[in-house]
């Protein structure tokens, strides 16, 4: 049996009958930090939204822990979605709730834990992402980096095996960004969580990624796959080397 936790097969995604990428396939192994990389507008976030079942692909299949999220509907789809957590680009914390209630909401809905148990569990999630003491803050009272960390804590509320992160470092200062990278690595190594990260922050990718796939909108698909260092140094594709070496066209 394969140890692949996620398997994407012959995926074609797009909007309004127009495809953004065609016939894409890749796998993500359990416990790895997998990065989807590419230039602006190449469809990284669209691919992610297909993988988490928010968009329906034009063709292809996406298996999450052996179950096809593309074909699943209703309760079946929701059951697959509970196997992963998602931290969105802008955090997407619920603005009318403080942090402890943001994290407590999925615990309240999906577990039989009583209020005290939910509160302690949520406090421990916040402590894991370095936000102990901020439990009663409202999202609007937090900095961008803190919101992203809180979003990761909320995504971990139900202890999913997989976390999808959409541009976690975007818009953050280098120190906050490095802190977030360290958090991702710590969670992956200590808790064994599998990460799928959409990013185009090169420094962050070299720090966190076990494996990378690189998308290109001209070729409508994956143009390179491997470790970041491998792609930078050995890719036969000049555009990939140019991207990794930050060279102007």
């Amino acid at each position, binding site marked *: 049996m394969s140890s692949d936790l996620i398997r994407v097969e012959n995926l074609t995604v797009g909007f309004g009958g127009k495809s953004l990428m065609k016939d894409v396939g890749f796998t993500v192994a359990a416990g790895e930090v997998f990065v989807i990389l590419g230039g602006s507008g190449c469809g990284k976030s669209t691919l992610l939204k297909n993988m988490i079942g928010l968009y329906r692909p034009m063709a292809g299949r996406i298996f999450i822990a052996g179950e096809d999220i593309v074909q699943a509907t209703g309760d079946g789809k929701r059951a697959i979605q509970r196997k992963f957590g998602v931290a969105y680009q802008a955090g997407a914390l619920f*603005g*009318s709730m403080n942090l*402890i209630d943001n994290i407590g909401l999925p*615990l309240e809905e*999906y*577990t*039989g*834990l*009583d209020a*005290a*148990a939910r*509160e*302690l*569990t949520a*406090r*421990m*999630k916040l*402590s*894991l992402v370095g936000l*102990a003491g901020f*439990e*009663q803050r*409202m*999202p*609007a009272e937090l900095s961008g980096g803190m919101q992203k960390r809180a979003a990761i804590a909320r995504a*971990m*509320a*139900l*202890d999913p095996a997989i976390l999808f992160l959409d541009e976690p470092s975007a818009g953050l200062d280098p120190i906050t960004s490095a802190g977030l990278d360290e958090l991702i690595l710590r969670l992956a190594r*200590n*808790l064994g969580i599998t990460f799928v990260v959409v990013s185009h922050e090169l420094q962050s990718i070299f720090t966190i990624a076990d494996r990378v796939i690189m998308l290109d909108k001209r070729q409508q698909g994956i143009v390179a796959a491997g470790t970041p260092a491998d792609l930078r140094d050995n890719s036969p594709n000049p555009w990939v080397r140019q991207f990794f070496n930050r060279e102007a066209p």
Partner: protein
Amino acid sequence: MLGGRLDAAGVAPLWPEARAALAAQSGRAVVVDAAGVEYCDGAGLAFLVDLLRQERPAEAAVRIVGLAERFDRLLAQFDVEQFRQPLVRPVVDDSLLHRIGLASLELAADLKTQVAFIGEAGRALAAAARSPGRVRWGDALAIAEEAGVNALPIVTLVAFILGVILAYQSAVAMRQFGAEVYVADLIGISMVRELAPLMTAILLAGRSGAAFAAEIGTMRVNEEIDALSTFGFDPVRFLVVTRVLAALAVTPLLAVYADVVSIAGGALVLLSFQVPLATYFNEVFTLVGMSDLFTGLFKCGVFGVVIAGIGCLRGLQTGSGAAAVGISTTRAVVSALVLIVVVDGSFAIVFYHLGL
């Protein structure tokens, strides 16, 4: 002794029992044998931390032994001392007196803001009158189309049904005196002077006033208003003047349209009471004068300015987050409805004393 899977489903029934068992053994040391634990996730770790954080004398401490190394490493990430103190939720004074005090302060602050806004908007409108070329007429026309032309279907429906209801209600009573024809006077005067302007204003408040607040509120949340300010643009000139001018133009036009549709609705009903169309319209045009029409239209103009102004003000007052936009929208509609009634009542008194 603990065993099996310590996940949310596993610990949920166990947790209250464990708390009760610890409380029952409050004076004795407790050793929890966790050698049988096969799986432990975040909820399981929270359960173990909860056992360890209980306030007990040193000689009655709780110890966890035999936990597999991989779970023990995860547990070691947490400082139990940090979770010993309960999370204290801020206490909100919910007494009646406190709430009345808060509401009074909010009302006073709101009135102050409204006065300041009237001043700002008045200055911007005066500047627009002095230099009409600086008004963004393209924006104003687009808003007028949305608030006016696109409101025609709902105005048609409501005005027509209002005319029909008014005609039926009054015709049944009037027939007892053989005075069905005077229903035309009743419909004509009440619609033109009062009901059409009021109905148009209420529809505009629910439709466009709310839309103005939501749109400007979302711009506030997205920092677009800050962007306007930092470019040196006056948000009132950009956002408020165009909306107020658009509402000032379309509200009277919608009211005239509502007058026509509602009177036509009444005419159809009176046909069934054997009142010919010629008689009906002759009665309406004889009794309803230009002063009735213009007082109605004047009120409509004021209603339009009030609705657009309060919608924009509530939008500009929006706080942060999605909920704030909802609050602004609700406040815009409620404030507009209150102001419409107050302004209408004031006009009734003024027109009476002026003999209009």
